[in-house]
């Protein structure tokens, strides 16, 4: 049992923290938001230069063979700096599908572009009524010759505006809420029949609603079994949840630090407001919440390697519950302790709060995952 980073992991942490300290303060971030698609190509290429975009891919695929802990380190750092670039969509999720189920040819076509920063991906999964159920898929993929024709509507596709390739979940068989008959398809973003409506999200990222109308793809578009890929989707989304937990831990760390600094310097009644016990206790409770979240983020990271799929997803669901509760408390209290200034766009704390808030509602909120744990028979 060991919770320390090894030497290589420590170096990785230092290198990404260093990179973001240099190129990602709050003012720089505002500039990046105004670039095309809402993030900085320059920063993205810096991440590529440091090998971070190839981190989880095997050495045979041109990557560095990093595991869950490495992704946790990166996501925590990205959270701490409130990074806009599409690491989750491209490397964790898009890369996850490629790592777990792609053929050598598919990997050869997509992985090098991810690693060198020239290509980004987006995960087109959410539908109007699917909410958090990954098996709830109305989008269809119908066989045509060797290939497929895809029809459907996908919503809130993160990085949908900029992505070169969309990873689309679509139903090849059965009814909307059947657990079988679901496939995963790689669709070029510029394919005929793909239309996008792009918009900024509440937390400063960019997303798109995407309509697929008679989109034709070849046989090489299918990742895994076109008729039975729910387990694959669950696996990759579990990894995305773990990554979001780590990102939230980074966000909470920075929120707490910023808030404590603020109450140490803000004076009222002639003294720093941090000298008041009610504020001290609130900050202590934020610390407790953040530590409990960190523990569960570590747990989820390690649980990701559990061989038993049920135990794995139960553990990750539990982590998402703890992170959801902690982030709500830390986020809300950060604003409260900042007082009026916390309500303004100028202060960075509100932006952390907004990103934290959106994480709770991504890939299952606290209630959703609590129900999953309860239905699985608990966690003792």
């Amino acid at each position, binding site marked *: 049992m060991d*919770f320390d980073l090894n030497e290589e992991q420590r170096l990785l942490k230092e290198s990404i923290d260093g990179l973001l300290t240099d190129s990602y303060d709050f003012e720089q971030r505002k500039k990046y938001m105004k670039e095309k698609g809402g993030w900085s190509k320059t920063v993205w290429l810096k991440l590529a230069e440091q090998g971070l975009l190839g981190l989880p891919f095997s050495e045979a695929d041109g990557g560095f063979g990093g595991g869950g802990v490495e992704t946790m380190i990166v996501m925590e750092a990205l959270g701490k700096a409130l990074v806009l670039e599409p690491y989750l969509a491209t490397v964790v999720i898009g890369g996850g599908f490629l790592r777990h189920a792609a053929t050598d040819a598919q990997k050869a076509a997509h992985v090098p572009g991810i690693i060198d920063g020239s290509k980004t991906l987006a995960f087109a999964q959410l539908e109007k009524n699917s909410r958090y159920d990954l098996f709830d898929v109305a989008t269809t993929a119908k066989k045509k010759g060797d290939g497929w024709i895809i029809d459907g509507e996908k919503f809130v596709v993160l990085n949908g505006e900029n992505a070169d390739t969309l990873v689309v979940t679509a139903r090849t068989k059965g009814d909307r809420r059947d657990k079988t008959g679901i496939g995963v398809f790689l669709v070029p973003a510029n394919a005929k029949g793909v239309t996008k409506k792009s918009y900024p999200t509440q937390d400063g990222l960019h997303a798109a609603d995407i309509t697929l109308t008679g989109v034709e793809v070849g046989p090489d578009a299918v990742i895994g079994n076109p008729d039975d890929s729910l387990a694959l989707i669950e696996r990759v989304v579990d990894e995305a949840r773990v990554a979001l937990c780590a990102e939230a831990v980074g966000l909470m760390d920075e929120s707490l630090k910023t808030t404590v600094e603020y109450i140490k310097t803000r004076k009222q009644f002639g003294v720093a407001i941090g000298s008041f016990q009610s504020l001290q206790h609130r900050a202590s409770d934020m610390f407790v919440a953040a*530590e409990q979240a960190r523990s569960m983020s570590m747990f989820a990271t390690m649980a990701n390697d559990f061989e038993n799929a049920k135990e794995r997803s139960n553990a990750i669901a539990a982590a998402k519950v703890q992170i959801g509760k902690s982030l709500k408390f830390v986020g809300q209290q950060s604003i409260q302790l900042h007082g009026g200034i916390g309500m303004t766009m100028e202060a960075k704390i509100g932006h952390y709060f907004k990103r934290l808030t959106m994480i709770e509602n991504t890939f299952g909120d606290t209630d959703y995952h609590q129900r999953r744990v*309860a239905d699985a028979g608990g966690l003792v």
Partner: protein
Amino acid sequence: MDLAFTKEEQAFREEVRSFFRDNVPPDTRRKLVEGRHLTKDEMVTWWRILNKKGWGVSHWPTQYGGTGWTSVQHYIFNEELQSYPAPQPLAFGVSMVGPVIYTFGNEEQKKQYLPRIANVDDWWCQGFSEPGSGSDLASLKTKAERRGDKWIINGQKTWTTLAQHADMIFCLCRTDNNAKKQMGISFIVFSMKSKGVTVRPIQTIDGGVEVNEVFFDDVEVPIENLIGEENKGWDYAKFLLGNERTGIARVGVSKERLRRIRDLAGKVESGGKPIIQDAAFREKLAACEIELKALELTQLRVVADEGKHGKGKPNPASSVLKIKGSEIQQTTTELLMEVIGPFAAPYDVHGDDGSNEAMDWTAQIAPSYFNNRKVSIYGGSNEIQRNIIAKAVLGL
């Protein structure tokens, strides 16, 4: 990073578990499961079994009878002990006064007291809190005056846990009235059978008697019963309180209770079906289990850190463990109350005589709920723990 215990650690867990299975008296275990109070005899019998095995004072240095276990082994032992469940060693002797004596006491004191603590030949109690000195412990007033070769002790202690069983007390006494309040305190041990010691039981809201008031009226104590240096008692008290870090989370205790809740919730009906099938209840239970898992991981982080980097200074993480650990213990007793519903009300009319098995198990649930309100108050209230985090961690 790695969650797994080593093969040797897993084998150790098995060894501990099977020792408990073979050696904890079944009645003792049953009473603990049901939240009943044990008799002095039941506790001492078990502690002597443990001591005979060599596990009575497991965390002491080996020259005084400790085991030399790693911090992970200690963790495993405690978890198994709490979740079996078996009575935990008497903290006042084993975790509190024992370490003070082997760290600050002289050779004579070590020889005299340590073996008797290990075998519970002496039952120790803690003379810290006073009516006017709770969270502000350093304001204590109990006085020890030097007269010839004796200390003359006058004053009053309170919340003295199980003093009714005690043979010995370790006591914080004021020995210098002129010094700053923390600087004039000494750590003195003496017999509870001494002339002038009076114990008055305090009945708590659960109906039990765990705590007492203890009065000292010109109690004469030999001068050599001072531990360490005169007026350094506050340092020893801080050492003593900071010594116990990871056990305070009582993860094993809560685990055992959650298993019991699951078991009972599968039997007790609500709306014509077991209450475990009620979605709202099940989710509340899951929520508590998730909190406990997070706490267990936090505790493991502290254990792993101690194993690697040594114990060093008191770790503020112990405040996190205390706050969350006590909250979760309280939640588990609330859930038990919810499971039994209207049968929470009857007082323990059936006693423990086994005359009505159907009702026996319900009788201690409300008392246990009432009793567990103490866990966020004792050992430094949760508000004091928040002060500690604010100061020691956040620098406020």
